[in-house]
């Protein structure tokens, strides 16, 4: 009998019951909640006369709608305000722990979960947000759900699921200086496509992943959904355990020792078999830049905008043409000739302290280029912001001409006031370059924090490997 994958182990450990048809009832340990995908779930619960099954499994935070400018006066948009107030009311009424907008621990839900130690190895973690895959970096089974499932978890502490396939993505070798976890995951998506992981749970493995920090691993797992997989995960090792030690929600004392023992088994067995395996050589990955309107439309910094005429599939070719028209780019243009006029450093992909350090290092005392209309840094949480300020990073950014903001999702999806105008072109550390994602008519190029910062100071996309040299 062959061994189990990490995903198999996590699945089996949460299996409440299995039906003959393949549907399973899976127990949920941690439920993260934000203001956008929860109000209808709470309303549904109330209308059915149900109560939350286990409020101590829930942690709530407003992040999508919150302003990133001065918050002392509250939220000016009445529709956004109502949504945040609805979350506050639901949590207060039901006794759910919530970090309110002005709590220093507030931030993007996928940043604060790990930061607080509320995300732990071996857990099932869900949230009404597709980037919940982030938490898989801890050897957890973590995935995004819709609002009906938010209500389902509230009411039953379980989800009805069908087991996914096992996909291993192995990355070995040493990354070049100036190349980061973001480039790795963009290269993976470029290789397997945005539907390459559909129907699979991805385990990211290999020496490159092992050498990444927890924050780097979170960046990789965060974008598993952009490769089509609801969940991405990394096996537990000392890096995982060291990161969690002493975090507010992490176990302490005897429980900590007990937990560590159990966490050490959270890896795929050596003889486990995967339904599909993909491997990449990290040493050959250059910094990545997306050119189109899907994360799979990505090339290396030293390449040019591709030509649809070279695409044989007619629907794909038409898709490329539409993307180029939307992005106002011509085939054959060197990526280094593309000049963004906006820079956004933030999001659940890249707004942690190491991301801000990498961006600040790429600025190195320079000023943002003349063509940059706006450059934003939006820390992932209040605690990340505080840490960055203690290190003087805020000063590096503001001296260069960046705006230093309050934490939230901000311009990643532009639900608050931070957004692109039609035709604006943005170097963004976020996760989606869909049409209109950062504001109607806005054009997004996904890059790493160092690449975004380098573009800000040079005025065009710049190879961060050379910057490092």
């Amino acid at each position, binding site marked *: 009998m062959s061994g189990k994958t990490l995903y198999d182990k996590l699945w089996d450990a949460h299996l409440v019951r299995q039906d003959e048809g393949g549907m399973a009832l899976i*127990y949920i340990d941690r439920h993260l909640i934000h203001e956008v995908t929860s109000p209808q779930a709470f309303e549904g619960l109330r209308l059915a006369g149900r109560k939350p099954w286990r409020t101590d499994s829930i942690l709530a935070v407003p992040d999508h709608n919150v302003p990133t400018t001065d918050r002392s006066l509250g939220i000016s948009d009445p529709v956004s305000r109502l949504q945040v107030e609805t979350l506050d009311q639901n949590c207060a009424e039901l006794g759910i722990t919530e970090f309110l907008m002005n709590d220093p621990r507030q931030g993007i839900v996928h940043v604060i979960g790990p930061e607080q130690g509320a995300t732990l190895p071996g857990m099932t973690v869900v949230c009404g947000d*597709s980037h919940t895959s982030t938490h898989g970096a801890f050897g957890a089974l973590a995935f995004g759900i819709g609002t009906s499932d938010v209500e389902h978890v509230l009411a039953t502490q379980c989800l009805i699921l069908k087991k996914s396939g096992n996909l291993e993505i192995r990355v070995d070798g040493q990354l070049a200086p100036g190349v980061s976890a973001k480039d790795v995951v963009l290269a993976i998506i470029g290789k397997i496509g945005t539907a390459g992981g559909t129907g699979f749970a991805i385990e990211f493995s290999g020496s490159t992943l092992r050498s990444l920090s927890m924050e780097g691993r979170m960046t990789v797992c965060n974008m598993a959904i952009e490769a089509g997989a609801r969940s991405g995960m990394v096996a537990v090792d000392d890096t995982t355990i060291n990161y969690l030690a002493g975090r507010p929600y992490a176990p302490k004392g005897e429980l900590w020792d007990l937990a560590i023992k159990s966490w050490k088994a959270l890896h795929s067995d050596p003889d486990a078999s995967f339904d599909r395996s993909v491997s990449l050589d990290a040493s050959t990955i250059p910094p990545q830049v997306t050119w189109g309107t899907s994360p799979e439309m990505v090339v290396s910094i030293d390449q040019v905008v591709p030509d649809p005429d070279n695409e044989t599939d007619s629907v*794909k070719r038409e898709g490329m043409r539409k993307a180029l028209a939307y992005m106002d780019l011509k085939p054959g243009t060197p990526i280094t000739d593309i000049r963004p006029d906006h820079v956004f450093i933030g999001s659940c992909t890249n707004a942690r302290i190491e991301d801000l350090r990498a961006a600040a290092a790429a600025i190195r005392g320079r000023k943002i280029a003349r063509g940059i209309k706006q450059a934003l840094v939006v820390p992932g949480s209040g605690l990340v912001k505080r840490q960055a300020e203690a290190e003087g990073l805020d000063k590096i950014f503001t001296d260069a001409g960046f705006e230093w903001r309050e934490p939230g999702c901000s311009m990643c999806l532009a*639900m608050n006031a931070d957004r692109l105008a039609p035709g604006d072109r943005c170097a963004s550390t976020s996760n989606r370059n869909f049409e209109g994602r950062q504001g109607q008519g806005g054009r997004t190029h996904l890059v790493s924090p160092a690449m975004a910062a380098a573009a800000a100071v040079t005025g065009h996309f710049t190879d961060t490997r050379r910057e490092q040299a």
Partner: protein
Amino acid sequence: MIKIDKHHGIVMPLDRHNVDTDAIIPKQFLKSIKRSGFGHNLFDEWRYHDHGEPGMDPASRKKNPDFVLNQPRYEGASILLGRHNFGCGSSREHAVWALIDHGFRVVIAPSFADIFYNNARKNGLLCIVLDEDLVDLLFREVTQNPGYRILVDLPTQQIVLPNRHTIAFDIDPFHKECHIRGLDDIGLTLEHATEIRAFEEKRRQTAPWLFNN
């Protein structure tokens, strides 16, 4: 959720790969705390030339006549024909609510994003996966024949074309039953409440640090 067993309706083609949920319902409309009222803003950025905000009167908006949803031949369409990786991106269930609110009952595509597929099932929007060549055939038929209608017969798992040809499709038996009976998942799960409690108690013993807050 809406029940569906047999459905006869006009087909609207949307000839793009990777139609994402941001395109299906843009973010500014997610601020609503209701489940209804999203239909007017379905595909908002493709459908209108002007920028949409919540609360705008749809009659006063500038429609894009080139977009399929605005073409008279597809008026009243209830079956959406899509391409590869339909519904990718954000987990927003508002995308499904918007499609249903507009009047769609069925989406046919070669593949769906997992979260979208699941959200659709929970609301009674039937997603049918067909091979790429069959989807191609339907695209040809629908573009060549104005008013093209098909019959989706879920109990027999067949699509009946106007020429009486049939296309068989697969669907998970559990999903099929949920669609036909309009089953409420929560009700189904709560039938196993005793098992859930027993599992939870066992977990409390083996992993007590998870019950420590």
